[in-house]
């Protein structure tokens, strides 16, 4: 695109460039349409509830107000739900990364007996529908009396076969000379893993981290059955509980403001790390 700009100033637009400009304009139009629902949510959250009673179809705020957004923080349990989501998502992401990296290191670098049997068994886990197995999981945690705790929301989610797959692929591709040099210098396996392999796996860890973060933040069914007390709701289940009664049309602005609060932490994380997302995955699936 930047090349195109320079060329355009020095010579006439060639048919190929014209085609490219038309194409990008059409794609931009499509992307703009794609964004309408999201923009609309922000717009409604910035409109006064009173004005929304007569007009909800504007994509710029009508009767602009910050009342709804401030209201979310002042009343209700939305703050508590946000906190729950942050704690659960944070620990789940860290746990998933650590476990997947350790397992990936073992599979990629340590020639231990039984490796060729265990690895396919872990890959088979890609086919296990985690969502659908919530009934037996519910019973196990009920017998351990762990429902309505953070542990119950975190533990079932931190063993991610897809994560082990991505980390194994990535670590296999790291040159082994660096590791061997450190071993000769007397570094322990843990030292090699912690100080060499982990930092070198940063792209894969970042991609996996974003995915785990998004998926955990958005987890719905398991928090719905496990965390049943209102103060243990995550923002995802909490927000769902508010949509039950559809007399909500009067409070549309406040409801959308909660949606905004539920989305902003993810949108921010995503915007910061989005470049690594494609890079990390492309490396992960590149050397299958």
């Amino acid at each position, binding site marked *: 695109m930047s090349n195109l700009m320079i060329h355009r100033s020095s010579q006439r637009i060639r048919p190929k460039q014209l085609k490219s400009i038309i*194409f*990008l304009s059409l*794609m*931009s139009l499509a*992307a703009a349409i*794609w*964004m309408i629902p*999201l923009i609309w*949510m922000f717009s409604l959250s910035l409109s006064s509830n009173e004005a929304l009673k007569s007009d*909800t*179809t504007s*994509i710029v705020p009508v009767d602009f107000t910050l009342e709804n957004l401030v209201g979310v923080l002042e009343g209700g349990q939305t703050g508590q739900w946000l906190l729950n989501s942050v704690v659960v998502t944070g620990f789940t992401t860290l746990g998933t990364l650590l*476990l*997947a990296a350790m397992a990936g290191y*073992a*599979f990629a670098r*340590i*020639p*231990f007996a039984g490796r060729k049997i265990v690895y396919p068994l872990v890959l088979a*886990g*890609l*086919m*296990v*529908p985690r969502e659908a*197995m*919530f*009934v*037996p999981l*519910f*019973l196990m945690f009920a*017998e351990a009396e762990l429902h309505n705790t953070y542990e119950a929301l975190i*533990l079932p989610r931190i*063993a991610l*076969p897809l994560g*082990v797959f991505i980390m194994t692929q990535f670590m296999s591709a790291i040159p082994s000379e660096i590791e061997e040099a450190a071993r000769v210098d*007397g*570094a*322990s*396996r*843990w030292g090699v*893993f912690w100080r060499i392999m982990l930092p070198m796996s940063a792209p894969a860890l970042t991609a996996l981290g974003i995915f785990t973060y*998004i998926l955990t*933040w*958005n987890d719905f*069914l398991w928090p719905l*059955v496990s965390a049943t007390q209102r103060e243990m709701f995550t*923002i*995802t289940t909490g*927000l*769902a509980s508010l*949509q039950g009664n559809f007399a909500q049309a009067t409070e549309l602005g406040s409801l959308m403001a909660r*949606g905004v609060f*539920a*989305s902003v932490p993810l949108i921010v*994380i*995503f915007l910061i790390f989005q470049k690594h997302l*494609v890079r990390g995955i*492309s490396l*992960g699936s*590149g050397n299958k």
Partner: protein
Amino acid sequence: MASLYNVGKALRGKSLASRESLSSNVAGWGFLAPFLVIYFALLLYPILQAVVMGFYDLDLLVISDRTWIGFDNYVRMFWGTDMAWTAQNMADWRLAGLLLLVPIGLSMRSRRLGIVEGSLSAVLVIAIFGLAMGFAPTSEGRWFDSQFWLSFGNTVLFVLLSTPLIVGFGLLLAMALHRPGKWTGVLRTLFFAPFVLSVSVLTLIWAIMLNPQLGLVGTFFESLGLEPISWLTSPFWAMPAVVVATLWWTVGFNIVLFLAGLQDIDKSLYEAAEIDGAGRWGRFRFITIPGLSRTTLLVTVLQVIASFQIFGQVYIMTRGGPNGATRVSIQHIYESGFRDLELGYASAMSVFLFVVMVFFSAVQFRMVRSRD
């Protein structure tokens, strides 16, 4: 671990190899242990547990009190009163299913499928579509649980509608966005963005978007001079509306995976093809499609598994309505277990769904492997 390794190195004797392998075993299993423990305890063991619980009558309120009832839960799922076999029952679904015999036969002829495997699949297809699906209650009888079939049928419908659409759109958009440039990067970000929303935000937006009075879709239809449709309360339109909302929400994930796949295709192949005079379609057909076969497999398997587990969208937006038109399997499992308190029956249904999903994934893996 470190000391063992150093001792081994210092000895430099015959025992070095065995000490080294001992150290490797300890280290390997040590690094693997935390993952494996949780993987077995909380991912694999629950499947076993579901199978066992499926044979019990188990009440959510008195978990300790369980009665062994054998296959009763499965009978309740699959059977009814006054059952009879007729050729006409679900004739179109079954005929469509029997068409699966054609690809199986073709694969056997071209030896992509072994004799044993091929015959087994053919027998399975005939047993399910030719025979089993012909059983239904007569006019005097009824299914023990008609909701089970209703919700499973809706789930299959959702899988059939959503998978080609979301995978296809993902591929198209990925190909359109697979070009260098800052602006394309921005476009990628925009198309991916809805994926970061949680399901309850998705429903918050779309339930009102699709509302004929409040939403933008209705306004758009009115501006075209059309009568606004009440999407989510129409038995015909409710499911397509859920599919469209899901497409908007999740297509970004597939775009990213396809983009990763496209990056891995050797660019010189395209240049060579262009020199050989291959057109746009020829390059797509003979370079892009084969080059993406593994990515497409991964995307399709993940999509099918995700689609079978659809729950949040319909549960929050329609509660399975209108009149059961969007009731899906997970919702039926959830309500049987946590509203009707029948955990044993809910487990049996989870096992059924699990078997269907694993079967689908296994078939897809098999298809691609035999093509390679």
